[in-house]
């Protein structure tokens, strides 16, 4: 290794470290040379094997919703008393759009493929709280065994992060949603 390529300052520091840590100075010189030669090079992009999740098609979404409301097609769905009662008070929907069917799927069927572990604004424990009303998942509790005290503790823990007064992480909109969840699963029958 031509150590003469290294300036005096580095050579002196190599000697000092070799002395101090009782290591071979050649190793340190070699490493210094390696750093000089490679420090500007970009890391090779590491390709992680990602499994692409295929979203449900419009037909698949419709099929699930039809099955839930026990109808055969959209015309029957629109006429269905159960459907009309179930969506009473919801924002008006255009059933010609896939978005509307996704809203119905999330509300009545469950989590859409690809939305199981969402990240970003409004996502807690992998669930987007503005798309789903899933308090047990958000509170990270088992509904079969959670006590009122467990619900309260989980709520307080989330409040510490999302209460509007919490510096840096507070958010009124998120906290409002958490509050509704707490009042819903904590309500007496």
């Amino acid at each position: 290794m031509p150590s003469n390529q290294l300036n005096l300052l580095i050579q002196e520091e190599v000697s000092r470290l070799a002395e101090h840590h009782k290591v071979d100075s050649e190793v340190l010189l070699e490493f210094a040379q390696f750093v000089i030669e490679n420090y500007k090079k970009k890391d090779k992009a590491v390709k992680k094997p990602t499994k692409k999740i295929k979203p449900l098609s419009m037909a698949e979404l419709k099929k699930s919703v039809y099955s839930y409301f026990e109808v055969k097609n959209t015309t029957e769905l629109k006429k269905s008393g159960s459907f009309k009662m179930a969506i009473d008070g919801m924002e008006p929907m255009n059933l010609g759009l896939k978005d509307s069917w996704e809203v119905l799927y999330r509300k009545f069927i469950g989590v859409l493929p690809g939305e199981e572990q969402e990240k970003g604004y409004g996502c807690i424990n992998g669930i987007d709280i503005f798309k789903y009303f899933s308090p047990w998942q958000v509170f990270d509790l088992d509904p079969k065994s959670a006590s009122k005290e467990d619900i309260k503790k989980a709520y307080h823990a989330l409040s510490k992060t999302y209460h509007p007064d919490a510096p840096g992480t507070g958010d009124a909109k998120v906290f409002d949603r958490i509050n509704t969840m707490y009042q819903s699963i904590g309500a007496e029958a």
Partner: protein
Amino acid sequence: MAKDTSNFTIRDEDLAKALEITVERLEEIIGFFESDPNDEWELREKDHYIYINRNYRERIFAEHGAFAIAKYMDSVAPKSLWDSIIEFITRHKEKLRNAFVRRKIHENCSSLTLRNNRHFLSKKDAVNIFCTSYARLNRAFDAIQSSGQPLEKFKDFDDFDGVRYYSLSGFYRLGRELAQSLTVRDRREWCKALEVVGERAFKLIISAEESRKKEIERAKDAAKDRDKKTCQITLSKSSRTHKFNLAAHHIYSDKEYPDLAACVDNLITLNEEIHKEFHTWNGGTRVSCTADDMINFIMERYPDAEEVLLKLYKVKNVFGHHQPIAASGSGRRSFPPAA
């Protein structure tokens, strides 16, 4: 005491239609049944059918009466006929049950109220409509709340003045849960029927109430026009120097006298402040009032207002015989006070 005829629900023309025959052919078949009292085919009045009009031989059948005729026809007709009568009876039962469900809803919807663009129904009414107990409804609620998709407060349920209410979406979820979990089949089917016909029944009630509210508002506007936008006690009009709001007051309160609520003659125009003063004097807006109460109020607080007293006595003469709904024991719906 009236005879119980509740088992007789199938009209002869409906039965003939289901059997794909004419009413005349049905009459012939009945004639065959009656021709030989000793054969195996029996059709008895007051058991299998009753007459609506004996002269015209109009009958109404019990289910087993309809079955007896269908069974006879099946012995002489192709097999498919039996299937069609079974289908007819099933649909007929479903229609009847739906009619009962509708009636149950109409009789138990006095709490129906609009909040945040959603219609809510009290827990008491929900218990009555589901024909269940508070304990069973509580269990259904707990089961839903422990599921992955619990009911959402403010949307599916809420508490108003300490009373639990369910929105139509919450009511639907409770009905669905009961329809799946109840052990008795009839009870499950009742809740299933609520899912099917509930929405239409509720919407009819809601739209009737909304149109009634509009009707009352129209009557109020007409009363103000009739009174030339003048307070009938002070005989003053709102002006640039003396601004005030006008109220159309129900002389006989709309809650206790709903039949008079949209009647212009039962309304009188008052200064809003005097209107409030009257209701405070009378014990609050929820306390019922009559022409006598207004007369007493005027004599005590506005003894110079002679003209309005004359008008009130006229109203009393016309409407004084009306009975408040609580006193008459009528089960009519009560409406929120509009005045």
